[in-house]
C-alpha cells in the first residue's frame, strides 16, 4: 500500500511538472496570419548542424533559426533581449568579482516535447563549453581578463555565473551560449570525436531545437526544409503562438546568376541582391510588384594591411611610417570602387566600424579622409619622401618606392580593390605589383615576412571585444606586426611597435573588466580614433544591404539588422505572408 502511494505521489508530481504553464515571451507584433512557406535561397548547404563544430556561414544560416540562447539580440545586434531567460541581471560582488544571473522561463520545451530546464544549461556549460577540446572555438570567449572561467551555481530557476574578477562581457558570451539538450547528448560528451559526430547532416530528422524552427529534410545540394517548432515559447500580442510561417525552405543554388533567375521566376520569395544586380532588379520592380529595401552599409571589413616586418628592411621602414600609410589611404580612391563595383550602392570606410555599428564613433569623420592626391603628397613629403625627374617616389635614402600587394584570387571584390589601389597610388609615382594567390597560400604566408601588403576581410561580432585576437599585440590574428615575444629571438632593435598600437593593446586587455557601458564606449571611441588616425589598417568600402522580396511578405521590422547575414530576417518568427 505504501508503495502505491509513493507511485501515486511521483505520478502526481510528474503531472504537475508537465502541466506547468509556459511563461510566454510576448513579441510586440499582432495581426499576422499563421501558415505559409517562405522560399529562400542559399549558395551552399549546411555542413553540420552541430553549432559547436560548424565554422561555415552556410551552416550558421540554417541553424540560427533553430537554436535559442539565454538571451537574444536587438535590431542593432546587441545582446540585451530576454529569450530563454526571462530576466537577467548582474552584480558586482563584495570580493571584487562579478556575478551574472539568468532566470530561466518556466514551462519551456524542446521541439520533441521534453522539458527544457536549468539541467540542460548546466549540462551544456559543464560538459561542452568547459569540456576538454569539445568545441572548435575553445573557451577563450568565456574567460575573464585573467583567464578564469565562471563558476556556475543553480538556485531553483536561477543560474548564477560567478567570475572572480570584474567582467562586463557576460551577456554577450554567456547569454549567447547555444543550449544543447541533455537527454540527447548525455552519453555523447565523453570525447570530442563522439560529440563532433552528433547532429551532422545524417541525423536530420532526429535533431531537436529550442528555436522557432526544426530542420526536417535536407536533400544535399537541393534544399533544406525547416518546419515550425510546436513548442516555441514566443507569442504575439494578440495571443498567437509564433512563428507565423509553417515552413522555411532554402533552395540551394550555387550560382548567383541562377539564383537571380529563380527569384525572377518566382521560385524564391526573397533575395539578397548584389549591387551589380541591383539595376536589373530595380527595373522590374513596378512590373513584378517587388519590395526593395536599401539598408545601411553591411558590417563587412575589407582592409589593406601593410607588413611591419616585411622581408626587405627598407620596405619595413615605409610601412611602419604613419604618414606613409595615411598617404596611401588618402590616395586610395574608394569612391571609384563604389561606383564600379557597387553601382554607387556602398559607403567608404575609414575606420574599423561603419555607421551601421552600435559602437561607431562619428568623430573619425573629422580626419577628413576623402580621396585627395594633394593631401597624400603632403603626407609623403612630411615623411621625407621626394620625387625624381621621372616622377617616381623616392624615400629618404633615395630608394625607389615599389612594393607588392596580394590577396586571394577568386574574390571579385578584393581583386577590384587591389586593381583600384594599384591605379590610385600610381598617381603618387609608386609602382605596386598586384599578385593574387590561392586562399590557403595567403593564410599560410600571413605570419611570414613574404608579403608587403595584402587585402583581407575578417568576420566577427559587432562588439569590438570580439576582435581581441586581431588587435592585441600577441593576438593570434595580429598578423601585420610581430608579437612582443619575438624579442626573445630576434634583435630587439628590429622589433617596432607604435604608441597607438600599444594603447590599442591595452584597450583590448582592459575593456572586459570595465563595467560602465559609457566608459567602455569611450574606449571604443579611442580605439577607432587611433586605428583610423594612424591607418594601422587601411579600411576600404562596404556595400549597402540590398534585398528584394515579393509584396506578400510582411517584415516585422524592415530596418535590416547588421548581425551577420540576418538582414531583414532577424526575428524570423514574426514574419508572415499576406
Amino acid at each position: 500500500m505504501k508503495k502505491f502511494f509513493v507511485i501515486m505521489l511521483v505520478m502526481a508530481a510528474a503531472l504537475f511538472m508537465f502541466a506547468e504553464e509556459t511563461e510566454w515571451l510576448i513579441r510586440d507584433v499582432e495581426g499576422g496570419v499563421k501558415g505559409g512557406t517562405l522560399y529562400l535561397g542559399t549558395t551552399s548547404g549546411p555542413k553540420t548542424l552541430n553549432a559547436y563544430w560548424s565554422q561555415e556561414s552556410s551552416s550558421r544560416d540554417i541553424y540560427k533559426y533553430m537554436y535559442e540562447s539565454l538571451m537574444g539580440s536587438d535590431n542593432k545586434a546587441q545582446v540585451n533581449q530576454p529569450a530563454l531567460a526571462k530576466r537577467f541581471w548582474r552584480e558586482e560582488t563584495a570580493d571584487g568579482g562579478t556575478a551574472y544571473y539568468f532566470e530561466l522561463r518556466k514551462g519551456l520545451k524542446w521541439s520533441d516535447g521534453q522539458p527544457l530546464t536549468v539541467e540542460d544549461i548546466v549540462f551544456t556549460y559543464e560538459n561542452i563549453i568547459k569540456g576538454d577540446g569539445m568545441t572548435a572555438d575553445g573557451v577563450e570567449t568565456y574567460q575573464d581578463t585573467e583567464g578564469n572561467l565562471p563558476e556556475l551555481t543553480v538556485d531553483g530557476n536561477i543560474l548564477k555565473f560567478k567570475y572572480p574578477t570584474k567582467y562586463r562581457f557576460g551577456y554577450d558570451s554567456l547569454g549567447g551560449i547555444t543550449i544543447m539538450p541533455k537527454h540527447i547528448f548525455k552519453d555523447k560528451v565523453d570525447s570530442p570525436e563522439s560529440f563532433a559526430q552528433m547532429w551532422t547532416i545524417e541525423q536530420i530528422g532526429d535533431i531537436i531545437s529550442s528555436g522557432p524552427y526544426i530542420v526536417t529534410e535536407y536533400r544535399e545540394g537541393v534544399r533544406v526544409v525547416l518546419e515550425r517548432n510546436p513548442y516555441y515559447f514566443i507569442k504575439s500580442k494578440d495571443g498567437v503562438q509564433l512563428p507565423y510561417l509553417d515552413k522555411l525552405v532554402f533552395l540551394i543554388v550555387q550560382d548567383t546568376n541562377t539564383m537571380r533567375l529563380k527569384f525572377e521566376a518566382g521560385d524564391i520569395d526573397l533575395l539578397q541582391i548584389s549591387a551589380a544586380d541591383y539595376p536589373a532588379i530595380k527595373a522590374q520592380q513596378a512590373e513584378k510588384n517587388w519590395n526593395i529595401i536599401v539598408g545601411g552599409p553591411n558590417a563587412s571589413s575589407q582592409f589593406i594591411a601593410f607588413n611591419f616586418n616585411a622581408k626587405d628592411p627598407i620596405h619595413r621602414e615605409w610601412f611602419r611610417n604613419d604618414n606613409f600609410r595615411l598617404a596611401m589611404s588618402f590616395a586610395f580612391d574608394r569612391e571609384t570602387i563604389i561606383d564600379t563595383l557597387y553601382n554607387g550602392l556602398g559607403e567608404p570606410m575609414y575606420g574599423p566600424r561603419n555607421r551601421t555599428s552600435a559602437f561607431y564613433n562619428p568623430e573619425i569623420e573629422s580626419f577628413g579622409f576623402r580621396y585627395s592626391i594633394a593631401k597624400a603628397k603632403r603626407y609623403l613629403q612630411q615623411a621625407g619622401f621626394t620625387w625624381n625627374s621621372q616622377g617616381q617616389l623616392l624615400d629618404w635614402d633615395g630608394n625607389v618606392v615599389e612594393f607588392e600587394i596580394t590577396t586571394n584570387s577568386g574574390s571579385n571584390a578584393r581583386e577590384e580593390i587591389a586593381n583600384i589601389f594599384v591605379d590610385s597610388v600610381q598617381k603618387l609615382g609608386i609602382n605596386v605589383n598586384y599578385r593574387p594567390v590561392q586562399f590557403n597560400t595567403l593564410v599560410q604566408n600571413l605570419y611570414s615576412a613574404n608579403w608587403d601588403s595584402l587585402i583581407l576581410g575578417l568576420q566577427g561580432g559587432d562588439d569590438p571585444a570580439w576582435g581581441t585576437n586581431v588587435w592585441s599585440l600577441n593576438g593570434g590574428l595580429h598578423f601585420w606586426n610581430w608579437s612582443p615575444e619575438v624579442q626573445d629571438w630576434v634583435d630587439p632593435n628590429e622589433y617596432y611597435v607604435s604608441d597607438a598600437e600599444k594603447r590599442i593593446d591595452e584597450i583590448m586587455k582592459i575593456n572586459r573588466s570595465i563595467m560602465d557601458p559609457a566608459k567602455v564606449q569611450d574606449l571604443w571611441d579611442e580605439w577607432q580614433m587611433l586605428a583610423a588616425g594612424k591607418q594601422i589598417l587601411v579600411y576600404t568600402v562596404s556595400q549597402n544591404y540590398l534585398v528584394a522580396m515579393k509584396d506578400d511578405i510582411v517584415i516585422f521590422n524592415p530596418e535590416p539588422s547588421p548581425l551577420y547575414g540576418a538582414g531583414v530576417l532577424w526575428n524570423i518568427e514574426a514574419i508572415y505572408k499576406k
Partner: protein
Amino acid sequence: MLKYILRRLILSLPVLLGVSIVAFLVISLAPGDFLDTYRLSPSISKEQIDNLEKQFGLDKEPVVQYFIWLKNIVQGDWGYSFTYKVPVWNILFRRLEATLLLSITTFIFTWGIGIPLGIVSALKQYTFTDQALSVFGFIGISIPNFFFALLWLFMSASTGIFPIGGIISNNFDSLNWFQQMGDYFWHVIGPMVTLGTSGLAGTMRIMRGQLLDELNKDYVEFARAKGMPNRVVIYKHAMRNAINPVVTSLGFSISGLLGGAVLTERVFSWPGMGSLIIEALTQQDIFLVMANLMLSALLLVFGNLIADILLAAVDPRVRLRLS
C-alpha cells in the same frame, strides 16, 4: 576469360596504390590545410588552433599521415570528412542519385544519338544531311558548357518551358509518384543537353570516320561485287570492324560516370559530385578528396576492363587473343 579478368584485377592493385600515393602527396604539398579557415576566425585563439591540429592529425608529416590513412583503409576505415564530421563514403553516396541520373542520361544521349547519327552521316557522305549534322556537331563541341548552360537557363527563364536549374520543383512533395519521376526528367533535360552536345559531336565524328574507312576497303567492294545486300554489307561486315575504337572510348567514359561536371552542375545547381569535390578541394578536406580520387581510379580500371570485355564480345580476333 575469368582468369583474364582476375589477372587484370590483381594487376590493378599496384596502380591504385600508386594513384593513392601521388594523390596524397600532391594534396599534402599544396599550401595550407583544412584549418586555414579556422585560422582566419577572430574567435579562435592560437592555442586552440594547435589543439585542433593535434585532434585532426594535421600536425604529423605527410608521409606519416599517408601511412596512417593506408593502415586505416586496410582495416576498412576510410576516415571521416573534416567539414561534415561524417564518414566520407556516406557523404559521397548522398550525391550518388543525382550524379547517376545526370551521367547515365547524358551517356545514353551521347552514345544513343551519336552512333546512329555518325552512321547516317557516313552513309550519306557529302550530302546536305551529312553537312548539316557536321555543322550541328561542331556547334555543340565549340560552345563552352557553362555558356551553353547559361543560354539554356535564359531560354527557360524567358519561355518558361523548362525549369530554372535544380533537380525538383518547389511543389515536389505534393506530386504523385509518376509526376515526381516526370519532374526529375523535366529537370535533367537542361544539364543533359548541355553536357551531351559537347560529347555528341565527338562520338558522331569517330563513328563517321571509322565507318567511312571501312566502307572504302577492298573487302567491302568484294562483298558488294558478290551481290551481297547493302544492309548486310554495312551492318554485318563494315560496322563490326568500325565499332572497335568506339567501344574502347565508351569504356573510358564509364570512368567519368561518377566524376561529375563541375561548371554545368554549378550553373544548373545540380546536386552532383562535381560541386561537392570542388568544395572539398578548396577546403582541403583531405579524406573526402582521397575517397573521391580512389573512386575515380577504380572506375577507370573497371571501365577499361568492361571495354575490353565488350571488345571481346564484338571482335572474335580479340576473343582469340584473350583465350
